[in-house]
């Protein structure tokens, strides 16, 4: 059986839209999706993948995923209009090391193992990268270069802060389902450069997540077309939240505290074993701001996608990870750590947050 999830889009969870619970196609059957993207959707990179509970990890590992682009990011950062655009999809693949008799999982880029990304010396390109692996973390770095970050998880940096269009980083942590949109500059002529991931420590119970080269960067030649400027997507939307309100919320008692634990039998939320049949734990009002406390009491890192919620501000505790500051849909909870967040619900009506929303 199979179905589709439109990850990160703030759309209805009901049939025929982003319904991963009741829409299901058995072999020989078909589903018709009609997903209404809101006019206020932040322009940027999202993705789709299969989501039948119990089978989605295997199907995602098989590469049953793709990118979604909500147009209009060039209105937030017009400098990208004359750049070449590349949509780069990280997936993972099992490979066999015959000498060591080991099976390893490595990243592929657009389906290829260590391809070359053509870019001229000094050329600025706009890369839109999604980590479509079900559980490999990428801590991306560009040898000899920096990333100029335009958007994280489909959210232009200037969406919440018009004064801040980009920021630079030497490396970017991209958890499973994470997306980043960056400007990169071609390495000097003759210099060899690579796009790679650093080793990520996912905790005592976490999976191995070694460093590896993902692609070589710099070969000129077969170029993608220059990015085409799309029709105007309308007036720019900004979601500015007053600093006073944010401070008040941060100082308040959390509206919702959720503690995650796990053992060999499964995952637990506030001490109760996770089940897709459970009733919602919390109800929220559309457009409201809430202060949540999220506690990870397991011994491994877990990404926490917040579905139809926008993470507005986070306090990082001593377990904070590099590259995680800013506004992200998907936060990382370090093992044995906790995390505070302010979340704004953004669906089109009252929504209940089913526990299944915690799945990616």
């Amino acid at each position, binding site marked *: 059986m*199979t179905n589709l999830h439109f990850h990160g889009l703030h759309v209805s969870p009901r049939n025929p839209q982003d319904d991963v619970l009741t829409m299901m196609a*058995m072999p020989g059957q078909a589903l018709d*999706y009609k997903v209404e993207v809101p*006019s206020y959707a932040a322009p940027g990179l999202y993705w789709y993948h299969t989501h039948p509970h119990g089978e989605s990890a295997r199907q995602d590992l098989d*590469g049953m995923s793709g990118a979604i682009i909500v147009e209009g990011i060039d209105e937030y950062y017009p400098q990208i209009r004359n750049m070449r655009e590349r949509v780069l999809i990280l997936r993972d693949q099992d490979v066999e090391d015959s000498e060591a008799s080991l099976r390893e999982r490595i990243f592929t880029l657009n389906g290829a193992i260590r391809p*070359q990304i*053509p870019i001229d010396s000094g050329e600025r390109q706009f890369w839109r990268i999604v980590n479509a692996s079900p559980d490999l973390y990428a801590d991306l770095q560009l040898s000899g270069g920096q990333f100029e970050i335009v958007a994280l998880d489909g959210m232009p940096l200037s969406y919440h802060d018009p004064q801040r269009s980009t920021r630079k980083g030497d490396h970017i942590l991209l958890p499973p389902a994470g997306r980043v949109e960056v400007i990169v500059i071609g390495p000097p002529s003759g210099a060899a450069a690579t796009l790679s991931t650093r080793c990520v420590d996912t905790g005592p119970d976490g999976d191995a997540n070694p460093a590896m080269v993902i692609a070589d960067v710099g070969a000129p030649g077969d170029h993608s077309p220059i990015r085409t400027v799309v029709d105007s997507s309308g007036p720019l939307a900004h979601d500015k939240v007053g600093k006073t309100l944010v401070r008040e919320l941060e100082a308040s008692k959390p509206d919702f505290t959720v503690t995650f634990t796990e053992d060999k039998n499964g995952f637990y939320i506030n001490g109760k074993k996770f089940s897709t049949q459970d009733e919602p734990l919390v109800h929220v009002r559309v457009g409201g701001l809430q202060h949540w406390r999220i506690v990870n009491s397991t011994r491994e890192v877990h990404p926490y996608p917040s579905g139809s919620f926008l993470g507005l501000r986070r306090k990082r505790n001593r377990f904070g990870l590099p590259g995680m500051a800013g506004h992200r849909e998907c936060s990382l909870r370090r093992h044995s750590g906790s995390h505070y967040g302010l979340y704004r619900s953004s669906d089109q009506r009252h929504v209940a947050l089913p526990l299944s929303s915690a799945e990616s």
Partner: protein
Amino acid sequence: MCLKVVVFIVSAFWIVMPLWAQPLIVADPPEVRGPFTLVATYDSAAGHNAFAYNGNTVPPVIRVMPGGVIKLHYVNNLPI
């Protein structure tokens, strides 16, 4: 003697060959901007499940405007 020459030629070819080999350039995925059909299928060549679109097992990038609609016919052709 003849065997040594053969070994030398093969070794030299093995060393130099990568210099001639064309690098694998990262491929741009196809794009869709309107209604389309996506098929879940088993890719026997690759030995695993896959999305098929337009005759290839390369999933497309869906491009949509804010306020737009993604219309997608999803067919499950996975084996039972």
